[in-house]
């Protein structure tokens, strides 16, 4: 393949992937009243306006809460699971792996509908509770995968050494295994955080009066008000995600784990 053809293909791919991002940033910079591209004039007013919207503030807080605590509880469940799967030959290991991966294989809409139909409606789960469970479940596959990868690089004789020095099995895990996979655990946290924060289909089914995650709130806002503030908010969120990943790569070598 010629050099120019290669450049063309790479160029087109990048435009296709990153182009929308620039369009959104630009659309948010509009001075006009409607969401449009190219923007009508230039101004930062919609970027400021985002912070004035009460529902954005509330849904941002909820999304943050879900992303942080949903991911933490996914790690609490996922790290031991990853440990067991990588250290022991378990009787139903393949089945467990499939179940653990299920939330990313099953379409989000089905997960959302399932939780709504079988937890919220018959069992009177609050919407926030269901959202929390859903976000935890969605992050578990990532937590298990990333942590498994870093456990596989850790030789198991280190734990045996700790045990022979007097540790219990659990003690060896806490004192020797955890400190040596903390990079992987942090990487799993970041990946989980971003996944949870950007989650739409499941949350769509599990939103109720006054309980909306940020992406769902943005959709709802756009149905009523078609102004550039949604574009401005999207741009801010995208920049936040890029920033997190950038820092993670710089300090953790994030791409080693994912």
């Amino acid at each position: 393949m010629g050099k120019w053809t290669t450049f063309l293909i790479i160029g087109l791919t990048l435009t296709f992937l990153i182009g929308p991002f620039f369009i959104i940033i630009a659309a948010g910079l509009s001075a006009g009243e409607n969401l449009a591209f190219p923007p009508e004039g230039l101004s930062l007013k919609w970027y400021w306006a985002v912070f004035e919207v009460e529902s954005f503030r509330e849904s941002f807080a909820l999304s943050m809460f879900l992303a942080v605590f949903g991911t933490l509880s996914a790690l609490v469940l996922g790290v031991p699971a990853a440990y067991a799967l990588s250290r022991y030959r378990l009787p139903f290991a393949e089945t467990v792996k499939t179940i653990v991966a299920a939330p990313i294989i099953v379409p989000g809409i089905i997960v959302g509908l399932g939780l709504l139909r079988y937890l919220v409606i018959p069992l009177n789960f609050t919407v926030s509770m269901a959202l929390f469970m859903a976000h935890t479940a969605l992050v578990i596959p990532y937590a298990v995968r990333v942590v498994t990868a870093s456990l596989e690089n850790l030789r198991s004789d280190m734990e045996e050494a700790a045990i022979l020095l007097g540790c219990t099995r659990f003690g060896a895990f806490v004192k020797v295994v955890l400190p040596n996979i903390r990079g992987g655990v942090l990487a799993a946290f970041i990946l989980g955080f971003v996944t949870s924060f950007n989650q739409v289909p499941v949350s769509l089914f599990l939103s109720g009066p006054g309980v909306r995650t940020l992406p769902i709130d943005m959709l709802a806002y756009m149905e009523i008000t078609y102004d550039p503030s949604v574009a401005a908010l999207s741009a801010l969120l995208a920049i936040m995600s890029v920033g997190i990943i950038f820092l993670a790569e710089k300090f953790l070598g994030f791409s080693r784990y994912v």
Partner: protein
Amino acid sequence: MSESFVSLKNLTLAYGDTVAVSQLSLNIRKGELITLLGPSGCGKTTTMRAIAGLLSPRSGSIEIDGTDVTKVPANKRGVGLVFQSYALFPHLSTFENVAFGLRLRKVSNGEIKKRVEQSLDTVELGELANRKPSELSGGQQQRLSLARSLVLEPKVMLLDEPLSNLDARLRLDMRSELQRLQRNSGITMVFVTHDQGEALALADRVVLMKDGLIEQMGTPTELYNHPSTVFAADFMGFENIFEVREGALIGRDGSKISGYNAPSGSLAWRPGVVSLGSGPFHGTVAGVSFAGEMWEYVITSPLGRITASTPAGNPPYPIGATLAFDLPEQFGHQIKGAG
């Protein structure tokens, strides 16, 4: 055997359905350095893991210092283990690696400092207390791994091929270092290796294992000079082993060479006692290599493959040369049974 300190009784060890060691009994005296020697898969590492408590026996028992420890978990057995890979804790400094076991025992900080420094000095790592294991050389990591176990004053110290990751020169240094440590501390050591030179050089007693059983055990000189089986002879460097039946040597090709008076069984010759240049047998030099003090030959002959050597002072026989050789009976080592 008098007052055994570690005693294994009819130990059978298995991984799932695979039996690795069967009905092994062994008594180790206090302060003795035992090597478990054998090819990979002979059960030597498995036996060591059982003594450490990392593997529970299918049947049989393990006693240490008069107490049955068969059911005592690994973390309460008071046994130290140096792993082949050293298994150091990469997130902790040299000092903290050694302090690890003491901290678990709730020893006071002052006492920890004293004991860790003392034990790092013993292995000459005192200057490197603040380094991480990854910043140490292979030999230093090895010594750190030793210090980490020794600081707890274990009743028995187990070493799993601890020298196999070191280069040849360092291996010799560490060998004498280990001997020094063992003599000074009087600690009972079980050393696992597949290297017969290492086993013979270090041990008070060598336990040669094969297929999960003890093939022969004895002092290094006993094993080296008087291997009792074909396998043991082969492992101890008797590279030319032939069956003897009814006064004749049996070649690999089935030929019978009469004139051997040994009782039925086998005769084994080290390469050095095969005489080249004259004799009743004929062969072709298939390979010759320089080994410092001598030339080493591989000779193909109707009898089978023969390995021999001549002093390095003489010019070598070239590859492809035909030559006569002899397997003199008076230098052959007699073994009961055929390979």
